C-alpha cells in the first residue's frame, strides 16, 4: 500500500520537533483568533503568513513550505473550533459557521451546562477532524490521478466551476458576487503577463510590475475591513459571559451526541469537498438533519446537546474536506483555502495533482500534521477552555489598534514597500464598504488567486486548438464542468424566481 507508506513518511515529517511546535502554535493561535471578535479564520491565516515566512526563512524551501503550511492549517482548524466558544458563552458567533451553534449552545450555557457544550464541541470537532482526514487520505491519491489526465481546457473549466460555485453561494445577490469575482480576476491581470512578458495596466509604476500582492488585498479586505466596521459602528461594549462550572460532559451527554457527531462528520465532509459550499452550509444542514432525526424536535433551540454536537462536527469536517480540492486539484473552494493556496504559491509550491509527486513531504506532512493538530486541539482545549474564555474579554480598545499594527507589520515585512501599506488601508476601507452593502469579498480574493492560472490555462488550451474556442465544449470533461458551473449560478436564481428560500453561504 503506497498510501500507507506515504502517510508514514508524512508522519515522520510532521513529528519533527519543529513541526510539532508549529502545529501546536498554529492551533493555539487559531483558537485565540477564533475566539477573538473581529478576526475570523480568513484574516487570521492571512495575518500569520508573513510571520511564518520569517520563522521558516532559514530552512530549505520545501521544508519551509511544509512547516508554514502546517502552522497555517493549524490556525485554520483552530479558528473553526474557537468560533464555537464565543457562540456558546456569549451568543455572538465568532464566525458564520458557528451561528447555528449559538442556538442551542447559548441555551445550554444559560442552564449552567456551558462546560458540557464546549467539551462536546471539542470532542465533536476532534472526531470530525479525524473522519475528514481519513477521507482525505483515501481520496487524495485517486483524485489527483484523475486530475493528472486534465489538459489546460479541463483546468480552465474546472477553475471557472470553482469560481462559479463560490459566487453562486456567496451573499444575497448573485450579481454582486459575480461582479466581485470578475473584479478580482481583473485585479489579477495587473502586472507583467507571464506568457508574453508585456506589462499590463501598470502605467510604468514599478510597484505594479509584480502585480498586486494577494496577501495585502486579503488582509486589507478581511482583517482591516472588520476592524474598521467595529470602530465605525462603535460596537465595543463588552457583553456578560456565561460561567463555566463543570467541564466534562456527563455520560448521558455523550450518549446523546454520539450519533449527531457521526452524522455531522460525514455530512460535513462531503459538503466541504464541494467547492463553494463551505463550513457554514455544512453546519446549517447538520442542524436541520438533527432536528429531523430527533425524537423531540421541539427541544431544539432550548439547549439540546445534539444541536451543538452535530453542527460543530459538521463545520470542522467541512474544513477538512475543503483541503481535498485544494491539495488534489489545486482549486481552493473557499476564502480561507484560497489564502492557504496563496501561501503555498509564495513558496513556489503549486498545489494540484503534481503536489503529491513533486512535493510528497508537503502534501503528506500536512495531512499527518492535521491528525496531530486535531489531537492537540482536543488535549489543549478541554483544560484550557477557561483560559480561552478569558481571551474573549480582551478590551477592544487595545485589540483593534493592535490588529491594525499587526497587519501593517505583516504586510510590510513581506513586501517592504509603503505602497502596499497604502493599498492595505484602501482595501480595508473598501472591504468595509463592500461587505456592508452585501458585496461578498471572498470571491474577490479567490478570483485574485485563481486569475493568473485561469488565464494561462485558457491561453494554453487555445494555443493547442489553434485559437479555436470550441475546445472548451468539445472536450467532454471540460463541457461537464462548464455545465455544472452555469447551473451553480443559475439554479439559485431560478429558485428565487419561484419564490423558494435559498440558503446562502456567508463569509467564512
Amino acid at each position, binding site marked *: 500500500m503506497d498510501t500507507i507508506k506515504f502517510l508514514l513518511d508524512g508522519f515522520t515529517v510532521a513529528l519533527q520537533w519543529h513541526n510539532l511546535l508549529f502545529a501546536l502554535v498554529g492551533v493555539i493561535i487559531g483558537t485565540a483568533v477564533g475566539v477573538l471578535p473581529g478576526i475570523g479564520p480568513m484574516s487570521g491565516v492571512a495575518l500569520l503568513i508573513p510571520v511564518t515566512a520569517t520563522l521558516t*526563512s532559514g530552512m530549505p524551501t520545501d521544508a519551509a513550505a511544509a512547516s508554514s503550511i502546517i502552522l497555517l492549517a493549524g490556525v485554520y482548524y483552530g479558528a473553526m473550533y474557537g468560533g464555537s466558544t464565543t457562540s456558546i458563552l456569549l451568543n455572538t458567533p465568532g464566525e458564520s459557521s458557528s451561528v447555528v451553534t449559538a442556538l442551542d449552545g447559548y441555551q445550554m450555557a444559560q442552564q449552567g451546562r456551558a462546560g458540557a457544550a464546549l467539551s462536546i464541541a471539542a470532542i465533536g470537532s476532534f472526531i470530525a477532524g479525524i473522519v475528514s482526514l481519513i477521507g482525505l487520505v483515501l481520496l487524495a491519491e485517486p483524485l489527483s490521478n484523475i486530475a493528472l489526465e486534465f489538459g489546460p481546457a479541463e483546468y480552465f473549466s474546472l477553475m471557472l466551476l470553482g469560481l462559479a460555485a463560490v459566487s453562486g453561494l456567496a451573499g444575497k445577490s448573485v450579481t454582486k458576487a459575480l461582479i466581485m469575482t470578475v473584479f478580482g480576476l481583473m485585479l489579477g491581470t495587473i502586472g507583467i503577463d507571464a506568457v508574453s512578458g508585456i506589462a499590463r495596466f501598470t502605467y510604468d509604476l514599478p510597484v505594479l510590475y509584480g502585480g498586486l500582492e494577494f496577501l495585502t488585498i486579503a488582509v486589507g479586505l478581511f482583517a482591516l475591513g472588520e476592524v474598521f466596521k467595529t470602530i465605525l459602528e*462603535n460596537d*465595543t461594549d463588552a457583553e456578560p459571559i456565561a460561567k463555566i462550572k463543570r467541564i466534562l460532559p456527563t455520560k448521558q451527554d455523550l450518549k446523546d451526541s454520539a450519533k449527531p457527531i457521526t452524522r455531522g462528520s460525514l455530512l460535513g465532509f462531503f459538503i466541504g469537498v464541494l467547492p463553494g459550499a463551505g463550513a457554514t452550509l455544512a453546519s446549517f444542514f447538520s442542524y436541520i438533519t438533527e432536528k429531523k432525526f430527533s425524537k423531540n424536535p421541539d427541544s431544539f433551540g432550548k439547549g439540546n446537546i445534539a444541536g451543538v454536537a452535530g453542527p460543530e462536527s459538521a463545520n470542522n469536517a467541512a474544513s477538512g474536506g475543503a483541503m481535498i480540492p485544494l491539495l488534489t486539484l489545486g482549486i481552493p473552494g473557499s476564502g480561507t483555502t484560497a489564502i492557504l493556496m496563496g501561501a503555498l504559491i509564495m513558496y513556489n509550491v503549486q498545489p494540484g495533482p503534481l503536489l503529491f509527486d513533486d512535493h510528497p513531504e508537503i502534501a503528506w506532512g500536512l495531512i499527518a500534521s492535521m491528525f496531530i493538530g486535531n489531537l492537540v486541539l482536543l488535549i489543549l482545549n478541554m483544560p484550557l477552555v477557561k483560559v480561552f474564555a478569558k481571551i474573549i474579554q480582551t478590551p477592544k*480598545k*487595545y485589540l483593534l489598534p493592535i490588529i491594525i499594527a499587526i497587519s501593517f507589520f505583516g504586510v510590510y515585512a513581506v513586501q517592504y514597500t509603503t505602497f502596499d501599506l497604502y493599498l492595505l*488601508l484602501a482595501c480595508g476601507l473598501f472591504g468595509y464598504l463592500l461587505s456592508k*452593502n452585501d458585496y461578498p469579498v471572498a470571491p474577490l480574493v479567490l478570483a485574485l488567486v485563481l486569475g493568473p492560472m485561469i488565464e494561462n490555462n485558457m491561453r494554453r488550451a487555445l494555443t493547442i486548438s489553434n485559437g479555436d474556442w470550441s475546445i472548451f465544449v468539445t472536450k467532454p470533461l471540460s463541457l461537464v464542468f462548464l455545465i455544472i458551473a452555469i447551473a451553480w449560478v443559475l439554479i439559485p436564481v431560478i429558485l428565487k424566481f419561484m419564490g423558494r428560500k435559498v440558503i446562502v453561504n456567508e463569509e467564512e
Partner: protein
Amino acid sequence: MIKSFDKISGIIFLLISILFISESLKISGSAYGSVVGPKIYPLILGIVLGILSLRLLYEAFKQASDKKETMKLDYKKFAIIFISAIVYVLLLEIIGYVISTFIFLVVAFQVMEKGRVIQTLIISAIFSYGVYAMYVNLLGGALPRFSLF
C-alpha cells in the same frame, strides 16, 4: 443606503469596465508563437464586468429605494484612526518602526477610549519594541531602524 450605494457602485463598475476595455485594446495583440495574445483575456473580463454592472444598475433602479434604519456611525473616531494610520505609514521609513508604531498605538488607544494613560504607554511600548526585537534581533528580519540616532 444599500440601494443608493448600488447605484453609485454600479456606475463606478461600469466606468471601470469601459476603462478596462479601452486600455486592454491598447495592449499589443499577438504574442510570439501563440494565437491568443495578452489582450484577449482582459478584454473579455472588461466586457463581462460591463454587462454585470448594467445588470446591477437595472436591479438597483428597479427596486424602489426602501427606507433602511440608518445606523449612527462613529465617523470622528474612525477618521482620526484612519488618518493616524496614514501618518504612521508616512513616518514609518523616516523615524523607524519602533517610534512610529509606538506613536500610532498611543494615539489609537486613546482615541478608542480616553484614560489609563500609563497602561496605554506600557502596552504600546511593549508591542512596538517587542515586535522589533523579536523580528529583527531574533529572526533576522529587517524593519526600518531608528534613524534619529
